[in-house]
């Protein structure tokens, strides 16, 4: 039975490059799919593009291609990435430049457009689309319409399949779904119909398993303490068979592990109803699948099913929603906890004194309850705790107010309890981009594909 080896080269903007290089060199793979985008990323990239029309794609794309293109060309590996972000055109030009700099000739570059509907929103609004918020139930985007900075539909694999059919070696998209870069090669290689729902359901599930790089190979794992060499991160490979089954594995000799537990950990990750894992390409049903260990670092996955794709695509609108100012300072033994409480009272009192317009405030004691919140029991040796870091975050209305929050924390240095120290200049105030998840009819978001050869 025909099979292909597809791998994941990235889970997000800022992921590690070395494991991607390792699997290109030693993984015996035909395809590498990269996910570089998270929910917030599109808004950041959109604003980069507004400032400079040559930017707005994932900057990692350039160093990634510099390392990977020569290997990929030598081995005939094709790469698909959503690093185009908010500017697929400019991303394409950047990759062309890399190819020229490296002396790579004859590279076929595929660009997929269509996810960005920001400029078409007024047109859709005029047609009567209200774009109700899927999270909050608010029925109309009216309240935020003048603050929207990005609008991207999560598009499926159609454009990428077309680009592969036109012999693209590198395919660049914007906000395509995480798994689409893995689905496209399967459909292309096996000649599956994009309406063969059980196959598409399998492709979505297999894509989901590997799309988060080391997420199915010991990253974010409950079995972290079985990892002998933490620094040797490995990215996964799916050896996919024509019938929709797959073996999840990794490059021979690479670090970490792939086993039934690590694959299961990722199958349940960021999935809601497992019978209806809805993606742009179809609906995958994970409830009948089986995992079986078939060798060292090899797990067979079978039994995925699928159903017809939805008539709508997920659309994520990003809108400006105030500013966050945050900062931290440390208090020490003796009486660290009581000192932390003193700092909290100081900050809350000062913000009131300053009449700071606070939309939301949160004060954490790092080392005590900053991660598990009210569910974290106080340590039994509270009197003897060595140190606590006090962290404050305030959502407010302007950059100036956000800066004031940071300034007040520095005052604890000299006006706080004895031994209060270690104010580290925190990141500048950040503007909040809230997300408004909604749906858009599929037919309103056509994809456009351009494939060109780089000379």
């Amino acid at each position, binding site marked *: 039975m025909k099979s292909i080896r597809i791998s994941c080269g990235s889970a997000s903007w800022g992921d590690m490059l070395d494991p991607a290089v390792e699997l290109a060199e030693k993984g015996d793979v035909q395809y590498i799919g990269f996910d570089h985008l*998270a*929910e*917030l990323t599109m*808004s950041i990239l959109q604003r980069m593009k507004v400032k400079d029309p040559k930017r707005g794609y994932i900057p990692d794309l350039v160093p990634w291609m510099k390392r990977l293109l020569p290997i990929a060309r030598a081995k005939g590996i094709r790469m698909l990435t959503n690093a185009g972000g908010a500017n697929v055109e400019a991303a394409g030009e950047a990759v062309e430049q890399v190819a020229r700099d490296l002396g790579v000739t004859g590279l076929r570059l595929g660009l997929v457009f269509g996810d960005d509907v920001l400029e078409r929103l007024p047109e859709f609004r005029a047609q009567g689309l209200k774009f109700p918020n*899927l*999270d*909050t139930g608010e029925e109309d985007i009216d309240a935020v319409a003048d603050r929207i900075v990005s609008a991207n539909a999560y598009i499926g694999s159609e454009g990428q399949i077309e680009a592969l059919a036109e012999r693209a070696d590198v395919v660049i998209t914007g906000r395509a779904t995480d798994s689409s870069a893995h689905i496209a090669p399967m459909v292309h290689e096996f000649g599956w119909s994009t309406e063969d729902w059980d196959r598409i359901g399998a492709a979505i599930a297999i894509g989901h398993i590997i799309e988060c790089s080391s997420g199915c190979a010991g990253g*974010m*794992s*409950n079995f972290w303490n079985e990892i002998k060499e933490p620094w040797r991160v490995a990215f996964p490979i799916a050896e996919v068979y024509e019938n929709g089954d797959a073996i999840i594995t990794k490059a021979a000799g690479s670090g970490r592990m792939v086993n039934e*537990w690590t694959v*299961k*950990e990722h*199958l*349940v*990750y*960021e*999935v*809601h*109803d*497992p*019978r209806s894992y809805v993606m742009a390409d179809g609906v995958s049903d*994970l*409830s*009948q*699948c*089986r*995992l079986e260990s078939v060798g060292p670092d090899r797990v067979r996955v079978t*039994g995925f099913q699928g159903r017809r794709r939805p008539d709508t695509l997920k659309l994520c609108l*990003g809108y400006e*929603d105030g500013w*966050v100012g*945050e900062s931290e300072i440390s208090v020490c033994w003796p009486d660290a906890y009581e000192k932390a409480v003193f700092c909290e009272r100081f900050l809350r009192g000062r913000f009131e004194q300053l009449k700071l317009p606070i939309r*939301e*405030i*949160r004060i*954490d004691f*790092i080392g005590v309850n*900053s*991660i*598990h*919140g*009210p*569910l974290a029991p106080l340590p039994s040796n509270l009197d003897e705790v060595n140190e606590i870091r006090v*962290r404050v*975050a*305030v*959502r407010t209305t302007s950059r100036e107010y956000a800066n004031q929050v940071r300034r007040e924390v520095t005052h604890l240095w000299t006006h706080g309890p004895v031994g209060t120290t270690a104010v580290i200049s925190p990141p500048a105030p950040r503007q*909040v*981009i*809230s*997300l408004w*998840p909604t749906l858009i009819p599929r037919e309103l978001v056509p994809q456009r594909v351009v494939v060109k050869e780089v000379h």
Partner: protein
Amino acid sequence: MPRRISLREVAYARSGDKGDVVNVGVMAKTPADYELLRKHLTAEKVQQHFDGIVKGPVVRYDLDNLQSLEFVMQRALGGGATRTLMMDQTGKAYGPNLLRLVLEVDG
């Protein structure tokens, strides 16, 4: 006599986010543990456990094939990763946090 069983003894968990929704996948360590979880780890118990953190409803989905339960929690992340003031912006620590739960089991 009811026994008290820490979830940590019988399950692994991993969590993640989509917008303001956090999901926790709870994986039973053994088939017997899965039966115990199915019987006792209800959506209501999980909802009570996260009181003060999760503001919306909690729904449970059973995955008999993976011996796992999926809990989907609405309005769980202070408005979602891009907006929340929580340090755990992407809900990664909700899994371990759920493992703090103690089940009261008959016999």
